[in-house]
């Protein structure tokens, strides 16, 4: 054993192991024995919380908060495995609306989250009304399961349409005249140049835009009791209306993916003119396509029918509290600080554009500022006006399956439409196909849901 027998290659790898191990050993140990651990997946939330947590720690001597940014893609699996092993479970965590209900599976007593009902209905400190009365109720829907509320909504995410104001003005289109979707489609047919320019960002293969359209019309995946309703008449009619907009000779929509540099290039090029735009996405535009400043504007969603809902919602974040936590009161206090503290409100709003779900906060002047990016409009005002109308997204642990199945139904229907000579949306044959397909997909969701029933 006089020497190292494995040769040059192995020796260099050994050297790597020692060097990197040494470097890692020298790194400061992060504190994971903090009083509270908080997971979030949104970089914007993370940045704004990071700034104000020291203030919370100052106000509560001896309390430390470990804030962690967890990838959205990994969050669901990480929460599942953490709960499973009862290990490294955060005390508070934010999770995306579509992933939240998967945490409500199994017998109620086994659910690892705290039922927030009692806290929500209790009067607030200093005589403020209970939080329940201050928040837009529809936003609790996705986080409610079998009568228990497991999450605090972070947002409302009412939707408007973002559009390339400069292009419309050049073409002489007055967007104020677009009142209904029929008006919109009419303008769209004129503005669309196949392969070059489309009226709206809409996909023929995923339900990202179809879903908010469905909710605008009063449809959805589940009813308040968690039963599958994604094949009801509203859904069928929405689908029949949507398909010819994204397929066939008269399509007015296309999509290149909703995020990333490909999409921002398309925005810049005016490849698509209108975009479904909840408050959070308006920030994405400001950040990712910054040089479109002043060329973009927002308009309310066209109505499906006179007197119909002027908005819908897309996306959402819930804040959950795990049973694992030994400091429930403190966790609640932190949540109230992060969500409600007035001193931080303006800063956070400016960095995220996200309107809080607590109605009495909206009077703050920051929500009524003009935004140069959005052609100097008071975008906060319009989101506030729409906020009370957001539809309730009732949920069920199989919500992920349901979203997938809606996308599949869309693909089915687009395929049928393309291969059957672009049947019109009034066409009974197409309608009956759509009806049967949506029923089939909904039944698949029902089969999945039955396995989880408790």
């Amino acid at each position, binding site marked *: 054993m006089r020497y190292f*027998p494995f040769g040059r*290659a192995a020796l260099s790898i050994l050297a790597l*192991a020692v060097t990197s191990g040494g*470097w890692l050993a020298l790194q400061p140990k992060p504190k994971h024995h903090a009083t509270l651990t908080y997971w979030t997946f*949104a970089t914007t939330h993370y940045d704004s919380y990071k700034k104000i947590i020291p203030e919370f720690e100052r106000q509560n001597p001896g309390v430390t908060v470990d804030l962690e*940014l967890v990838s959205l*893609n990994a969050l669901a699996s990480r929460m599942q*495995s953490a709960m499973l092993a009862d290990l490294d479970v955060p005390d508070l965590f934010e999770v995306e609306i579509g992933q939240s209900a998967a945490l409500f599976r199994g017998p109620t007593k086994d659910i690892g989250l705290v039922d927030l009902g009692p806290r929500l209905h209790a009067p607030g400190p200093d005589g403020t009304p209970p939080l329940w009365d201050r928040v837009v109720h529809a936003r609790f829907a996705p986080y409610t399961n079998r009568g228990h509320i497991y999450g605090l909504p972070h947002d409302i995410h009412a939707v408007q349409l973002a559009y390339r104001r400069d292009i419309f003005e050049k073409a002489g289109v007055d967007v104020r005249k677009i009142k209904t979707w029929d008006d919109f489609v009419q303008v769209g047919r004129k503005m669309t140049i196949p392969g070059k320019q489309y009226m709206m960002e809409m996909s023929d293969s995923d339900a990202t835009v179809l879903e908010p359209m469905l909710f605008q019309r009063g449809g959805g995946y589940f009813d308040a009791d968690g039963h599958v309703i994604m094949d009801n008449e509203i859904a069928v009619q929405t689908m029949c209306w949507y398909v010819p907009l994204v397929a066939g000779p008269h399509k007015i929509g296309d999509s290149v993916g909703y995020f*990333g540099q*490909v999409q921002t290039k398309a925005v810049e090029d005016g490849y698509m003119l209108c975009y479904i735009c909840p408050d959070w996405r308006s920030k994405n535009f400001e950040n990712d396509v910054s040089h479109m400043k002043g060329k973009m504007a927002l308009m309310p969603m066209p109505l499906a029918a006179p007197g119909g809902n002027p908005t819908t919602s897309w996306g959402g974040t819930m804040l959950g509290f795990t049973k694992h936590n030994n400091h429930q009161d403190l966790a609640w206090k932190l949540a109230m600080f992060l969500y409600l503290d007035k001193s931080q409100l303006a800063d956070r709003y400016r960095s995220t554009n996200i309107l809080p779900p607590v109605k009495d906060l909206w009077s703050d002047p920051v929500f009524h500022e003009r935004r140069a990016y959005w052609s100097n409009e008071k975008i906060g005002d319009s989101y506030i006006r729409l906020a009370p109308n957001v539809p309730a997204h009732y949920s069920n642990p199989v919500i992920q399956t349901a979203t997938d199945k809606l996308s599949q139904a869309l693909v089915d229907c687009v395929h049928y439409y393309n291969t059957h000579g672009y049947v019109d949306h009034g066409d009974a044959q197409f309608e009956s196909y759509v009806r049967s397909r949506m029923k089939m997909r909904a039944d698949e969701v029902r089969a999945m849901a039955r396995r989880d029933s408790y």
Partner: protein
Amino acid sequence: MNTERSVQTGRTALTITMFLLAAIVLTPLVWLVAATLKSSDDMFHYTFFPPVSHLTLSEYHDLFTKSPFARYLANSVFVTSVTVMVQLFFSSLAGFALAKYEFKGKNIIVAIMLATLLLPGQLTMAPLYDLLYHMKMVDSYAGLIVPGAVSVFGIFLFRQSIQQVPDELLQAARIDGCSEFQIYWDIVMPVSRPMIGAFCLISFMGAWNSFLWPQIILHHAELFTLPIGLNQLVSIYQTQYGMLMAGTLLGVLPVVFLFVLLQKEFVAGLTAGAVKG
């Protein structure tokens, strides 16, 4: 004469075809390099490289300042190189025993090993997670290294190559009074170096690119390996392709370096590995 000329023409045509194919294969990599030298805004403005005035290292700068990239890199280097070393030692030791000794149970061991080679690794993820939880290894380097410390593939590889070491060499060492471990360490390993080189590269590439298991077992960002850390940059709300591409390129460099170093051994090792099939 004519046939010779046609052979020559055929060869030229084939050579050109090969270089064209190579160009096609390399194009995505050239694009990748170019993408890391453009700002995010320019990414799709220029197909490949932007004009010199638009060249920038800002994506690299962002990568190191806006994400804990250095930490990811160090984690990957550490976990991968330790895994390789541990695998190398255990696999060669067991491969030696299976190649040069007759002992009870040997055939059973080989049969079970063969069977597990055919089972998909994902099969055991769930119970393995459960097991590591009870052993308190979830969310630790050990949770990455220990379950990956044995490589059945590696044992077959070493068994194969060690079988070719002449028995006389071993016997001579025994007569000189070498212990069995000294034979392994002083005789067998030094003559197995080409195989060690090949194994190091294969094992390194495997551990370096490992994604699914770290994705499940790691919770804290300061332990993330490169693939996990980079996937953090992809989100349904935001994707930083420029940083992603810069990270991808930097993430490949260690493997490229190792490959260039070990190319010859690698080819030799692959054939030996193939023989067992």
